[in-house]
């Protein structure tokens, strides 16, 4: 099998959510000497893009996106020992968390998973994260992007507070801020001074990729 057709098969296996098949094909690719980096960009990343497209076209469910993301992540991890340090470098760093008072995290988790599959390093602060913890994380980890999520209207106001605290700490200009969650709208994001609004995880990841590309 040619390199190209092997990578295409791997990509298809991921798109079809075939975990075992993907694993075998990735091992085969490694055995054939295909550089891990190429496996990641030509098979895994493009599979994730395809799955994202299918989701946007209402052919795939969000839950299938998650499964694809998990397969992609596991295979990437499998490839890591075979990569040179320089190659492991992530395309960007993102700190994410659900704001104070909000105990719901499904949306944030999906976003984090998809960011990782897209090649980002993700630092997940978890749920019910107070403003200070966001500020601390930005100070210590120096991420390119900070993402906040809220599922409840009563907690979404906390986002504005976090941005204020970032400003006070003189960190607002050092990081792009993206927000998301059921009650959030484009207008709200603008009003509180966020840089972007991800109406779903796919859109959110696209925005992050665009920001990194421009840097």
């Amino acid at each position, binding site marked *: 099998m040619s390199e190209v057709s092997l990578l295409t098969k791997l990509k298809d296996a991921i798109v079809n959510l075939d975990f075992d098949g993907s694993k075998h094909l990735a091992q085969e690719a490694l055995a054939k000497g295909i550089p891990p980096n190429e496996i990641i960009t030509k098979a895994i990343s493009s599979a994730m893009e395809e799955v994202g497209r299918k989701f946007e076209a*209402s052919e795939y*469910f969000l*839950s299938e996106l*998650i499964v694809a993301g*998990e397969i992609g992540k596991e295979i990437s991890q499998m490839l890591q020992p075979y990569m040179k340090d320089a190659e492991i470098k992530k395309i960007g760093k993102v700190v994410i968390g659900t704001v104070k008072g909000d105990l719901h995290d499904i949306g944030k988790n*999906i976003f984090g998973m998809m960011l990782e599959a897209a090649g980002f390093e993700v630092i997940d602060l978890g749920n019910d994260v107070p403003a200070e913890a966001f500020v601390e994380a930005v100070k210590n980890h120096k991420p390119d992007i900070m993402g906040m999520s809220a599922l409840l209207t009563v907690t979404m106001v906390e986002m504005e507070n976090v941005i204020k605290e970032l400003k006070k700490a003189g960190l607002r200009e050092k990081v792009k801020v993206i927000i998301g969650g059921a009650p959030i709208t484009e207008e709200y994001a603008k009003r509180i001074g966020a840089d972007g609004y991800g109406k779903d995880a796919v859109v959110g990841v696209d925005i992050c990729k665009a920001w990194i590309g421009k840097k």
Partner: protein
Amino acid sequence: MVLFSKLEIEKPSELIFGSAKHPLNYGFGLNVGKGEVIPEVKFFPRVFSDKDPEGFKTEVQTITRDILDRAVELGIPSLQIETELTFMETKNPRLAAEIASLQKWLMEKYFDEHGIKLGFRVTVADIRDFREGLRTTANYNLMMETFDAVSSNGADVLSIESEGGKDVFNHSIIRQDIEGIVFSILLASLDMGFIWKDIVNVARRNGCIAGGDTACAIANTAMKLAGGVKSMSLPHTLAAIVRAMSAARSLVAYEQGATGPGKDCGYENVILKAITGFPMSMEGKSSACAHSSLMGNIASACCDLWSNEQVENLMLFGGSAPQVFLEILHYDCKLMNRAIMLGKALELRDMLVLSDKYDDPQALVLSPDVAIEVANAIVSEYGDYYRRVKSACRKIVEILESSSPLRLSHAEARFLSHVKNIIDSLPDDGETFREQMCKTFTGKVPTFREKDYWP
């Protein structure tokens, strides 16, 4: 243990609102399931600090009085009030007892002064911490103490939304992992077998009624994830399948001696009413205050109590939100009760059913004919927690595939055939399944521990 090996209500035409095979009589003259649909109103207090038990008591008192006042203004003949204890209240049995007796005292007053028939359900929160384990922990004991406190201080009916298996379910549902979902429902059944034995004992000791449980943490999570008609978060067929399977789990309460009325947010109650003949509370259209659904009308088709699920005590122009939603429930009930009086209940029921039935797979499950088919699939495997979940799944997939005019998208149809393959590939016996799944989930879901379910 009661084993339901056949249906108490076998004919779809007898699975209908306001009438149950085994009606209940409790509280201040309340008759449930005996020819009348009764509003069941539920509220959420506006108290901003968990550290303010006095504020809590005042708030609950105000809300209860508001509700009773509006009931009198509207001339409502029969009413059930549900108090769903918060974590804070459940962890404080003395406070829970005080609140229950305060509410009961008010109810007695209004019953005496205005003749309004009243029932009082208290739902205790499942305060167990999965990290600590599910049985015989301090929180478990505290929860049972609170059941005891409220049932000896005025509660007529006890309920809980128990959460066994929820961690495995949460992990599985967002991955569409059918095996994991089946396993989580098996876990939930085992957990219910344990806790409902204790709840029924407490209820018997205090002369009150063990109501029922709801698969809220499971089936309603799936419903919420499934979202609106165009949402692609989760297959709506999956939410429908989870609902059908969850009936096998919620049945356990009745096997342990609960007698209904089943708790409102268990949409699987239609299936349980067919199996047990006990009256059921349902919610739908008028619980839009708590969450949106695609089965607002069909959910009322077989209810005996009709509930608003939960509404925060905000002020609207027309009164407090609990008053407003009581009024809406009242008119819903008035219509159903008038239909009963006119001998046209079945016709109204069918209008309610058909108004939603084919618009979403989740609605289809609640249709009396479908519910009875699923109920039969469950009792055909009575006594086996695992096999009856599988049986419900297989049955509902079969129904969903053949239910025109229900239109399934390409993605939904693809998903359905995937489920069929998975279900057919599952082992026949629960032991093998248990071994496989415990291996899969131990470690993967950090809070899952085999010994919480098989001690």
